[in-house]
């Protein structure tokens, strides 16, 4: 009976074909078309192309010479580091802590997960109000504590930090939930036998929890890093157009700007191709670092 299911694969194919057609039309075709677009001259969204670029790799050269693109790449790399430490790192700590308490685990799970449910645009507007120069929450609190001058949280020295803070805050819950599920898969017996052997709490975390979570952490880091390449909504609402002075560009926001504001569609297609290439490279690197281990 069991062997029969695997012999005849034709029904499987029938089920898979509709989804494959859908993906081909709405994902793979636009993907290939986008690569082609980056070599052509297109002056606005939806307009027909005006022929091939001259030379055909013009946009890619422009990308390497573009000062804003360099800023965007640098900021994105910083964002990747921030998400690994700030999102996944904090999520690991929270997950281990929550795993160790008996009462209230459900409450914390709900509370930490909540920010993800809120629209990033709404969060962006909220943080705009918190960091507002005149009458913003932080500035008002500082004034109450005696600070005399107002801090411009969106000027060149603070902008990058203020941009990354809400992004970090929003997604901690997402990785937290994944990690908590991963933690639940670790058998209680291991902890019990470790206690019998006299292991402290910290040793248990270091020698049992973390190694067994390795694969889950690998997944989370890949998601976090590729997310940093694509993130758009929160940064754009708080710092549109790379404000101030083009210091806060990210690959995601710069691509949007080139498409919709400067209408340089072929250049933004090239940026999109770059984002994909970077995504593939970084996920391969992360996978290698967190090599699948058999415990």
């Amino acid at each position, binding site marked *: 009976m069991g062997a029969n299911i695997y012999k005849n694969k*034709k029904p499987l194919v029938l089920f898979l074909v509709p989804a494959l057609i859908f993906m081909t039309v709405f994902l793979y075709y636009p993907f290939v078309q986008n690569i082609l677009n980056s070599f052509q001259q297109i002056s606005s969204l*939806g307009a027909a192309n005006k022929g091939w670029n001259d030379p055909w790799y013009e946009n890619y050269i422009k990308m390497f010479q573009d000062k804003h693109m360099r800023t965007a790449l640098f900021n994105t790399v910083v964002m990747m580091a921030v998400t690994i430490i700030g999102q996944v790192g904090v999520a690991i700590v929270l997950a281990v802590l929550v795993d160790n308490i008996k009462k209230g685990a459900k409450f914390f799970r709900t509370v930490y997960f909540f920010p993800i449910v809120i629209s990033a645009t709404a969060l962006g507007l909220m943080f705009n109000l918190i960091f*507002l120069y005149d009458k913003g929450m932080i500035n008002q609190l500082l004034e109450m504590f005696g600070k005399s001058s107002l801090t*411009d949280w969106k000027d060149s020295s603070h902008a990058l930090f203020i941009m990354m803070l809400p992004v970090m805050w929003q997604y901690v819950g997402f990785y937290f939930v994944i990690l908590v599920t991963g933690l639940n898969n670790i058998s209680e017996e291991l902890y019990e036998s470790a206690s019998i052997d006299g292991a402290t709490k910290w040793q248990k975390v270091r020698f049992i929890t973390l190694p067994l979570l390795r694969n889950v952490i690998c997944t989370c880091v890949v998601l976090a890093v590729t997310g940093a390449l694509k993130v758009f909504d929160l940064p754009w609402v708080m710092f549109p157009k790379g404000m101030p002075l083009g210091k806060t560009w990210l690959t995601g926001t710069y691509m949007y700007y080139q498409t919709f504001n400067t209408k340089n569609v072929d250049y933004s297609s090239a940026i999109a191709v770059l984002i994909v290439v970077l995504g593939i490279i970084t996920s391969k690197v992360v996978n290698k670092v967190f090599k699948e281990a058999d415990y």
Partner: protein
Amino acid sequence: MKKKLAALLLAGSMVLSLAACGGGGSSKEEGDSSATASLSVTTTFAGEDGNAQNYKNAIAEFEEKEGIKVNDSSATSDETFKARVETDFQTGSEPDVLFFFSGADANSFIEEGKVVSIDTIREEYPDYASNMNDDLIAASLVDGEKYAVPVNGYWEGLFCNTAVLEAAGVEVPGADYTWEQFLADCEKIKEAGYAPIAASLGEIPHYWWEYSIFNHTSTETHLEVPASTDEGNGPGWVEGMEDIKELYEKGYFPENTLSAKDDETFAMFTSDKAAFLIDGSWKVGGIAAACQSDPEDPSTLDTDKLDNFTVTYVPTNGEREATDLIGGLSMGYYISAKAWEDESKREAAVKFVEYMTSDEKVALFAQHTASALKEAPEVNEEDFNSLQIKSIKMMADVTSLTGAVQDVFSDECRVSTFDGMPQIVTGEVSAKDAVQEGLEIYAEQNAE
């Protein structure tokens, strides 16, 4: 055999449901439009626009009178709005009726033939826009045809917070306001601890850009875009940008002008922290709303607070007189080709535009601005608030209204000097290079 049959049936039903989803959507749409006529409309009468409430009332009256449902997706006019409208046309989701700019911003969809010209409409409806003076209707830059029926015009002037001016010991500027006097006034205001100019150079440098250039061109030549920074108005454009840089370096803009949004700096102006604001006639409504405890309800207006605001002429350091303002009739109602070709929508769209551009409605919307009406009905001063009356008085002494050159200078051309304004004023990019970049893109576009 049974298993194969079951598998086939399941796969088939999945494919059918996908197809049905797609098909069902479009058939539902057709059903809608044949049952009750509906019209999708987009205008700029929303948010802080002075006519936002008038517009909502007008739509409600129209719906009741004609029984046509109006789906309104109006929004405040800013760069995002313009980008949205252009994208809508390109993706085929344009509105049936659109109130939009008639300058370079409309080029993209006029070139594609996505809107119908007034002449074409008049072939079917000879009385269309017959109450308008055709000479005052703007012709499109693409083909010289007229597409948009104007409602209200606009002017851009210098709004002043007289409470701040008094506190700083500065007189309200008059008809002979010079740049030197302006600089001296700004210095006094700055020393008194206020921000002289409320402007967000990072988001909306538009008005300062326009007037700074206007100060170095003339009323006759202002709309000529130079071929380069060395020809025609070229040097004037560069000098204009450098004037703004001078104001920034002297600290006359708010401290966070490069990172603040326009709403923030406007709030500074209305909460007595800044003295001057160059903005358009539409802002009169916005200032009044800021003086109302309920922004939607004009009866909650604090008239004493509103009395602290006035509007006057913009300082000049060039050929123009302070009383030569930027203004005109730069927006109008378009009917999309999509709606025109749809028999059920054609009639509704024409009725809507005729209703919104009737003598009565134009007088209501235009009020203290300009209009193209052949016969403008008399307006009762009691219907206006103090700022509107001051605006009307100011307009009475205006010597000329010149169109804005940014209306012919499209989005892509503006990137280096609008988006790049922070870089210009901080000296990262020289004014000459930034202007040259924009002019080159303009030359490229017009060579095609």
